[in-house]
């Protein structure tokens, strides 16, 4: 009893693209605009630069996307990023980079797991949980570092942040690699389905035998792990761990995820959109720099663009429902 898809004319295809790929069109449009007004934009070095600059936001956005897909939210990623990278940086001279990095990653995962348990096991509101852990973990970072940057990072660690493999920056390879892995997991692993199911209808998910508590703990743990990962890349790039880094991180990540079409109410959207959202945000920043717009105005423009993107998304959702 399955009827075939109705035939799509060229006009319908165009409408379909506008409805479903609005954000991609925005990215392309912005790219074309910047190529015209700036000689620098469409050069290999500038594009490479954009990809490198967005790599930490991409890593953070992937984790954030997982959390939002389950219907949650996590604003503590910036603090987790700062704390776990401070822990790692402080240990590097003593126990070596590899071990220190692993401890940093585990610190991030552990903090994420605490978020996850508060949300999953205690059933608390994700926003409130991560808001309090954001405050506490940020404070822990200041206590641990006494407020000073930790610059005892060995020579050579900066390969992780500034190195190249052939023509490709290493952070770009790492972040895109993580993206591909998580994209495949969401699409082809039962775990991915469980994430969507939990976000779409938690009660139905429980009735379908899904352990939603475990799913929630898992996504917050992964988000913590990825935050630490992004933090390590930043340490490598800056050759030090700075206690204040990442204060805008949750907002950039949430903006990229939402612009990429993942619904804040959970269960809807794809990681592909998140990638486009991250690139759009990165291209906006790049463009603002190329056009020499004052830093004070940059934040304003970013805010307006995000708002417009979300408004467009909202109307897309409404028109699809009709």
């Amino acid at each position: 009893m399955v009827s075939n898809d109705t035939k799509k004319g060229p006009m319908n295809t165009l409408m379909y693209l506008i409805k479903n790929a609005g954000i991609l069109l925005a990215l392309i449009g912005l790219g074309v605009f910047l190529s015209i007004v700036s000689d620098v934009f469409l050069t290999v070095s500038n594009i490479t630069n954009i990809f490198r600059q967005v790599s930490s936001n991409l890593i953070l956005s992937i984790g954030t996307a997982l959390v939002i897909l389950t219907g949650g939210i996590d604003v503590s990623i910036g603090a987790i990023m700062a704390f776990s990278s401070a822990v790692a940086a402080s240990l590097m001279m003593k126990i070596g980079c590899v071990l220190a990095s692993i401890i940093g990653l585990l610190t991030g995962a552990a903090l994420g797991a605490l978020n996850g348990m508060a949300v999953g096991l205690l059933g608390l509101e994700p926003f409130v949980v991560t808001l309090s852990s954001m405050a506490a973990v940020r404070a822990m970072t200041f206590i641990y570092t006494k407020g000073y940057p930790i610059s005892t990072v060995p020579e050579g660690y900066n390969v992780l942040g500034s190195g190249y493999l052939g023509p490709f920056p290493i952070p770009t390879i790492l972040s895109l690699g993580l993206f591909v892995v998580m994209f495949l997991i969401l699409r082809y692993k039962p775990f991915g389905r469980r994430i969507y199911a939990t976000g779409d209808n938690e009660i139905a998910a429980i009735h379908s035998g899904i352990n939603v508590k475990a799913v929630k703990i898992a996504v917050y743990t992964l988000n913590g792990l990825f935050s630490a990962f992004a933090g390590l890349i930043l340490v490598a790039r800056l050759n030090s761990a700075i206690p204040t880094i990442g204060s805008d991180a949750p907002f950039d990540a949430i903006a990229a995820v939402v612009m990429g079409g993942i619904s804040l109410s959970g269960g809807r959207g794809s990681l592909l959109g998140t990638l486009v959202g991250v690139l759009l945000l990165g291209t906006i920043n790049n463009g603002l720099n190329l056009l020499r717009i004052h830093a004070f105005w940059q934040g304003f423009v970013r805010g307006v663009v995000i708002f417009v993107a979300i408004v467009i998304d909202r109307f897309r959702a409404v028109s699809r429902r009709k």
Partner: protein
Amino acid sequence: MILLEVRNISKSFPGVRALDKMSIAIKSSEVHALVGANGAGKSTLVNIIAGILKPDEGESFLRGKRVHIQNPAHARRLGISLVPQIPSLCENMTVMENIFLGEEKRFVHRGFLNWQELFNECQRLLEILDIHVDPKAKVRDLSASENQLVEIARALSFESSIFILDEPTATLTSVEKEKLFNIIKKLKAQGRGIIYISHRLEEVFEIADSYTVLRDGKVVSTGEVSSITKDELVRMITGEEVSLAGVKREAKDKDIENAEKILELKNVTADGLHDISFFVRKGEMLGITGLVGSGKSELAKVVFGLSRIRSGEVLFNGKPLTLKTPKQALKVGMGFVPADRLKRSLFLHRSVVENVSIASLQDIAKFGWLPLRGEKAKCTSMIKQLSIVTHSPSSPVMFLSGGNQQKVSVARWLMRSPKLLIFEEPTQGVDVKAKQNIWDIMENLREKGISILITSSDVDELLMVCDRILVMFDGRIVAEFKGNEVSKESIVGATMGRRIK
């Protein structure tokens, strides 16, 4: 006197002509039954009358005067009240807040809301209606039927002249239904007009004076209820010959009586359940009925691992089973098709395929990865087997009709070749044809040796399909009947606590 008349109303949605130049007139002191299959246009019509939707064309007349109904508030001012099919109350507010939502200014004195007065008024209203609900209770803590009763109380608080009741009895027990019918009779005696929508045709004959049959957005027939028979009505609704047939179970009785017990509960006590002992045999269809609060929904929850037992023993296939989560119930071969499919069963934004496969992901996956084509093929064969009507297997489930959504939740369990399926109110709110369809599906499952546990407040349904019927009252099983040797009266009696045997 004609209270309300709509003439040549049409309304189209993308791809569907929901109403096609249809007309209807409601007189005062009349209960007018509006019947038709799912998708015939009943809800569209009442939504237009209640101001929720705007017609594409056509006119409305109220007491002979032409009116343009702008929005629900306007409809209410004109004296039209709607009790929607799906309760639309604010879950986190109290009963009294909900009942007088938007009408608070009646209780405002010098700029302040007089809560005591509002409470008293609510209490008075509930008392008149004989509804036993605490005005200060939060709506989210109410059962489905209490929700429905509050919704009815809310509609009555407006003192309207026209009441529209859309499937009001779907979640009500027979006692509550009687109460509702008494209220309707009172309203009728006061000269008001009532539009009554129901799939339960016996109710139409019990309460309605006149009827209108809708099919594909058009009026097929209209007239006095006393001038037609039930069979004629069914024929007009479906447009074809359908006779509601139960399952011929006599022949199979013997086999089933000798089959092994698949599920057995011994002296189980849990929240809302006291000392429950019963069993289901392989290939048996066991019905459980009772009033709301009798424990039948709690029982289904316990069996499926949704709530824990405090004492007692559960045996599955003869082996003791500790049930803590639905996952464990799933593993041994149980499936649960809950009553409230939108809330508890379906992932509305996900595709039919994903909805069907969600409980079988481990079986479909190869080395931990899902072969999407293989998954789609398996689900497509389920779609065919249950004749689920969908645009494509990848369409979101929200675009399917109610009956087909119900089948999707059945398909989910069928994928797992289950041993026992629990159906909760399996045919609630579905039309005659879909009802028969679901019964046929259950019978097919049973023929494959799958045991079926049905909890339902529709006694007629249980009598039609079940081998045995258990009756619950106050958390206990109070009576057991063989499906083919019991009258409806004795079951209904038992549900109200009348001891038998």
